[in-house]
């Protein structure tokens, strides 16, 4: 039983990461009907941005987690957001009216460029890189289950951010503009909303969340690789679909469910660990075949 609970906590932590990344996917898809293939790489860039800043911090600051962690996170966000904005402007915006094949292929190209660019030009990125210990070490043990402080931080941060995002989208003016643009961009334009700007804001929000996830994941696992984005991105997309594309709370739930499923498969299936990544795809296929709107899905607005 304790083993089950232990793995459950592992799953929740994993799921928090997936959820944060998934939010970016779901928002962008909701607004411009594009699966941003390169979103996973934005996640990876967040980690690398944090790492880059850490390497130039003076030693005194490096040891102070309470200072280093937020700074590195901000650095990660800066890098991710910058790349995301450029990506939107240069690669996606010109293709907004093209048949669906074009932006998708472009997204694949962008993803390849980001991954390879990092591998080629970030010093040492051709091998896995060591990521600093920015999360508190140590753990608390409840009834035989060891919960590390790091995991608690990750989950808490993730949940707080998700709530913040949900509030933002529901309450603020920009949030309303985002929802309007998602529902009907032409009418939104007629209502005086600058849809281009709204789209940029969407990308920025998604990238920020992914960057935070990147830094947290890097700190938790202690290693980053240039190809982290690919699998993480696919799994996060699965989480988004599982929860219902366009639905923020669904995203979060989808992330946790996926994380738990994955870890349980490792625990209880023979050779489970080798097949670890497979379950995300199986879930994806099952959801899309049987319940394409996701678990909590709202009917995705059909553009008239």
């Amino acid at each position, binding site marked *: 039983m304790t083993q089950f609970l232990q793995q459950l906590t592992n799953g929740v932590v994993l799921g928090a990461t997936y959820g944060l990344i998934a939010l970016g996917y779901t928002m962008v898809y909701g607004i411009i009907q594009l699966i941003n293939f390169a979103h996973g790489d934005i996640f990876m860039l967040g980690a690398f941005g944090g790492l880059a800043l850490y390497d130039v911090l003076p030693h005194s600051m490096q040891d102070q987690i309470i200072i280093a962690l937020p700074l590195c996170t901000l650095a990660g966000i800066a890098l991710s957001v910058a790349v995301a904005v450029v990506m939107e402007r240069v690669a996606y915006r010109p293709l907004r009216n093209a*048949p669906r094949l074009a932006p998708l292929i472009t997204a694949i*190209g962008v993803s390849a460029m980001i991954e*390879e660019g990092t591998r*080629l030009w970030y010093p040492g990125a051709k091998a896995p890189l060591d990521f600093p210990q920015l999360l508190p070490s140590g753990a608390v043990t409840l009834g035989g289950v060891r919960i590390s402080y790091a995991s608690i931080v990750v989950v808490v941060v993730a949940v707080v951010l998700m709530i913040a995002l949900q509030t933002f989208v529901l309450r603020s003016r920009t949030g309303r503009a985002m929802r309007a643009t998602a529902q009907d961009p032409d009418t939104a334009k007629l209502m005086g909303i600058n849809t281009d700007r709204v789209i940029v804001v969407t990308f920025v929000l998604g990238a920020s969340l992914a960057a935070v996830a990147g830094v947290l994941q890097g700190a938790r696992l202690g290693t980053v690789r240039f190809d982290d984005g*690919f699998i993480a991105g*696919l799994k996060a997309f699965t989480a988004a679909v599982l929860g219902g594309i366009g639905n923020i709370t669904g995203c979060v739930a989808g992330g946790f469910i996926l994380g738990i499923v994955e870890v349980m498969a490792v625990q209880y299936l023979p050779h489970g660990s080798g097949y670890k990544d497979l379950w995300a795809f199986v879930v994806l296929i099952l959801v899309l075949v049987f319940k394409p709107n996701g678990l909590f899905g709202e009917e995705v607005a059909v553009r008239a």
Partner: protein
Amino acid sequence: MTSAFFRIYHRYREQILRRTGPRGRVLLIAGMVLCLIASVLPWAVNGVGYTNPLGGNLQSAGIGGPRLYVLLLTLVAGLGLTSLDGRRRSTIAASLGNLVISVYILRGLVHEGGGTGAIGVGVWVALVGSLVLFLGADTLPVTPKNILPSLPAFADIALILVVIGVGLAALVVGLGIEDDKQFVAFALFVVALVFALNWLGVATAFTDAFERYRYIGYAIAAAAAFAFPFTQNGNAQWMAVFARVGVFAAAAIGLNVVVGLAGLLDLGYIAFFGIGGYVSALLSNAVFTTVHVHLPFLLVIPLGAAVAAFFGVLVGAPTLRLRGDYLAIVTLGFGEIFRIVAINWTGLTKGPNGIAGIPDLQLPGGFDFGKPHTLFGQLLPFQSNYYFLDIFLIAAVMVFFARINDSRIGRAWVAIREDELAARAMGINTVALKLLAFGIGATLAGTAGTINVHIGEAIEPNAYQFIFSALLLSAVVLGGMGTVAGPILGAALLYAIPEKLRFVQDYRLFLFGLALILLMRFRPEGLIVSRRRQREFHEGGSGADAMSQPGQVAPV
């Protein structure tokens, strides 16, 4: 920032034009003369202590290497003085070609020769000359692409022969150039020349002639393809590459059916290729295999194709009704599932190590694919055997593709691609037809896959990562979706170029990503254009296809 640059450029252009007026021809002639002089001057300084990496002896006067290219391009630019249509663009292409070649050589000299002191007079003259030539070309009146007068039958056929022959010669020469820098200069020359000739109407004349005398054209192309191994002088290096290119081209044609004809985006396509491969490997009694059965290859091909087809239908049946984007991700998921299973089911597939020591094919008559053979007095390395097999495969697939494209099924696919709802309303069984396309694609991939593993004599799961599906997709898109020859060209370019430009190897995927972005932005219909596709892509926002959401109606 680029728009600012162009604004400045336009302003100065106006000033220059006002001064030279209709006498832009003066610039043109001046530029030509300079370039001609440059092509005989030395391009590198004598006695500078470096080994000349640029080939030809650039240190002395005379025509060699890049100077020959400059000379030829200048001659083409000379056509700017005539009254041919399209001369502006072609002369611009030629002058830009000269410019880029000069810049490239300049850079190479500075880099390898140890500094600006190594640059010979000729390079500067060429630079200036090509700039002047460009400015002169820019003053020419804008005209549409040239249309050559229609030629009598024998001239048409001669044209096809010449173009294909020259193409083959260029390929052989290009592949034979050992030094990377020389090759790049050669490639630049070829590109500039192709652009220039395109605007002079040669390309259109060729395609028209080909359409008119299609079967003769195919025969000539096939002959050229067959002739290729004989040009290699027994050297196996390129035969190995092209044997693989052949297999990938066949797979690309299969993907073309799925993506180009039926409009279904399959990002997991490489898995079918892999399924065919594993079936073939397991039944070949390889040295490191798990299944100790040896079936004759002629039986294995259809078996591999059948297994792949089975999985194609299995995958397609529940998922083909999904929207375009979702279908793409789901197929990607299947591709990854295949790869993960292949890695972990070590009992069957030997896991990450794959199956090695796959024997070469043997035909019942005793013909061993693994041995080199001599034909017409030329020694053909053993990869040529697979290459010839590939040609047969591609020919068969091409015939199949052309027939189905022209049939009711093909037209139904077009209808589905353009507007699925309307197609269904017209009584087309969209589900069955989409499944058919998917299944056909899987079958073709499986067939190609069975041959592929024998060329490399081994198979392993890492060859079937997602990136290779993306590569195949790019080959189809680059070559031209929906066309017959497009995927072959795309596959050839995408697989052969990285092999040739070895120094680019590490940057390969990065450039690949960049190329995809540029391609989708500026020329999404690919190199060989299907008229229909071009209209689809450039009609602006209303271009509807199966990728868009159901319910979107194409405006009248």
